[in-house]
């Protein structure tokens, strides 16, 4: 068994301190060691976005980040999107627009959309489609997902 490395990171605002092997991806550690299974594995090679997290504020595929690379980093997962006031407007918008069917891609889309709206609170349909192109959904045809993100923009604009 190879030696494990110690990693100290901040995950969803809380300090996290864990041991991992260098070959373990951030995705694997989140899911199997830290039991944060809201981040999903769809392809494990960066082509579907189901494992999206924010790493130091940037949207990444956690399957393409080694857990050891997260030492000293801030990580935000789907479990951290809901705040103390309850659901994030994106989560409410996904629910009210029926923007999920099976739901497996939903955490990845919400994390991606959150990163987008933090940069561009008034993203257009075209910008949303471009930003989300790294997230695959096989159920919805994307229509209601794009509408939900547009709806979330309105909700956030109204200061909800």
């Amino acid at each position, binding site marked *: 068994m190879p030696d494990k490395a110690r990693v100290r990171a901040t995950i969803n605002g809380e300090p996290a301190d864990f041991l991992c*092997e260098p*070959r*373990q991806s951030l995705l*694997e550690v989140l*899911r*199997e060691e830290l*039991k*944060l*299974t*809201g*981040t*999903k*594995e*769809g*392809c*494990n*090679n960066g*082509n*579907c976005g*189901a494992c999206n997290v924010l790493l130091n504020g940037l949207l990444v595929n956690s399957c393409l980040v080694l857990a050891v690379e997260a030492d000293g980093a801030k990580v935000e*997962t*789907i*479990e951290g*999107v*809901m705040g103390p006031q309850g*659901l994030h407007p994106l*989560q409410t918008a*996904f*629910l*009210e627009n*029926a923007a*999920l*069917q*099976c*739901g*497996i*891609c*939903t*955490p990845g889309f*919400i994390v991606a959309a959150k990163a987008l709206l933090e940069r561009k609170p008034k993203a257009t*349909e075209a910008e*949303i*489609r*471009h930003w*989300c*192109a*790294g*997230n*695959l*959904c*096989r*159920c*919805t*045809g*994307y*229509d*209601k*997902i*794009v*509408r939900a993100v547009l709806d979330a923009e309105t909700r956030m604009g109204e200061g909800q």
Partner: protein
Amino acid sequence: MSPTETKQEYQVIGKRPVRHDGVDKVTGRAVYGADVQLPGMLYGKVLRSPHAHARIKSIRTDKAMSLEGVKAVVTAADLPDPEGRTANLGELGDVPLRNLTRNVLASGKVLYQGHAIAAVAATNPHLAEEALDLIEVEYEVLPPVMDVLEAMKKDAPLLHEDLCTMELGKKSDHHSNIASHQTFRRGDVKAGFASADHILEHEYRSATVHQGYIEPHAATAVWSADGQVTLWCTTQGAFSMRAMVHQILGIPVSKLKVIPTEIGGGFGGKIPSYGEPVAALLARKSRRPVKVVMDRTEVFMGTGPTSASYVKLKMGVTRDGRIVAAEAMLAFEGGAYPGAIVGAGGLCLLAPYNIENLVIDMYDVVVNKPKTAAYRAPGAPNAEHATEALIDEFCELLKMDPLEFRLKNASKEGDVQANDVRFPRIGCIETIEAARASDHYRSKLNGPNRGRGVAAGYWMNAGLTSSVMARLNADGTVTLNEGSTDIGGSRTSIAMQLAESFGIRAEDVSPSVVDTDSVGYTEVTGGSRVTFATGYAAYEAGQALRRQVVEQAAKLWKVEPERVLFEGGVLRDLDDAAKKIGLPELAETLAHRGVDIGARITVTPQKVGGVFGVHIADVEVDPGTGKVTILRYTVVQDVGKAIHPSYVEGQMQGGAVQGIGWALNEEYVYNQEGKMLNASFLDYRMPTSLDLPMIETIIVEVPNPGHPYGVRGVGEVPIVPPLATVANAIAHAVSVRLYEVPMSPPRVVKAMLAKK
């Protein structure tokens, strides 16, 4: 009660409540297949064949077993001998058990690249993977058969040395890769063609495509020392999974509990068992819980895609646009074992049109590809692609509006289908008319290299058995257990039917998908049957609860039940205004008295409503690269009655987009040795959000008389029309016809250059 075609007022149905499982799914709390975590759990990995066709000469596992951290290794030798036994697959009928067992772990031969051979359980997934490299398998490589027409040739290498064709229901005595040949025949085809003014014939091909659900298969098993087996898995049918694992492992049903997790997409592909029996075997051998999760490559190589197909279609049409004869040959790949769903393809092929003279030959053929599985309206998209594209050529020839032509030939109630069964009330005409009246169809499309296409589609839908258990809680809310795994929001559409039927709000029903010990037998989530059949059971449960609360109120007031009315959440005595009680108060009273208000319902509704869709696409073709852009897309569909319109629209949009992917870019690419070259989401190109416009939907409601609220299944038919819709649009954009899907850019360019 049966629905009438006049508009009915509903309290719950037709509204758009937030789905009951929604919050769990937008917060990451919902537990899917791979999310199961158990104390002491091991990780299982599966060794797969690198060859498309080979004899297994030997397997040695001792080196793998001796790696530190490895706790169990299993091969086909650990499975009971399936020879000579039959497995019952419910909806899919009886099949030789061997075909199931050998697909789970190969024995004797491997029949496709990715065929499972052995599995390892270890303390972490990386170790398990390392152990796979230590398993030594000696193969004698055989020539692969990768194409349906090649496989049908007399001198083709045989996959199964003992397979003989079922020829029109009778087993022939010569060995072949053709598993079966069936025929539909009606009228006098010869005379029909003789009366035609125009006859056209073409051959249509479609490639192997995958369902492409985003969640890989995952199974976790515990095998207790007392022989009790518990299986968590992501499946479309907990009960059919239980039946398969029971038959493959030879353990009593009573010893097996299947707990369905949330399911991250299926589209038919999560009906078969793959890792589930393997996880159980590993758990038995290691005496530890074992989780087996596939990676994406394994999903592509080791699980059911849908059939690649060959369809030859000839039709005869009169000069005024009436179809008078059709002759078709459908050959579908079953993959490594028999079971291509070609019969459904044959039945749907011409269903939108009333044609008196027809003959349809259907062949189920084995090839060295993964055993095919159902994929959303299985068989129909590849089949109807031919019909709808050929009709478009007739319309061009006759200079007829394509929807006029379809209306002229449209099937209606009482018309006879290819299998000699009469159509019940159907909405084919209404759907075509709605398409014709749509804003999209009436709009102008301008610009070079742009074209509009339309096509229709039919899917028959399934009924089958469904169960629910409902219980009134002490506060007047209802807890609903149901057996249909929820892939797209069906908990809510089922709960809404109970709420409507009982007379409460949707929010006051709490639906749960439960394990096989906790609800009655329920068939798979497939055949667009859940909202129809499980919803039917929920309707019955609502009626039963209603009867019981009325009876209890009557008892309380010592009056006849006929005098009690339950409306707006309140029970009242029709003859005595002083006597009234809210449902919550009554429920509380009854709970204190130990009166259980509940219903246990199992239904097998027979009057399934088939559905039609018409799609309209505007495309633009890049003349330099051959790339097709979808500019506008509209789905028009009969849904019977939309219980939750948002999720109905979602099915229409999602199905259409899967069909667009199939039409444009999706395909398995194989090399000469039968090895798949594009087993990743990078190179198996499913549409992204950037490849699509919004998908417009038009819901047509022609109630199904066979359901109390008129429900027809809506999930599958929207994948049927896109292949021809897009093909026809391309034809009108750049005046070339493509007869093979996917209509990928190189094929479009090639056709355009050939024309120049």
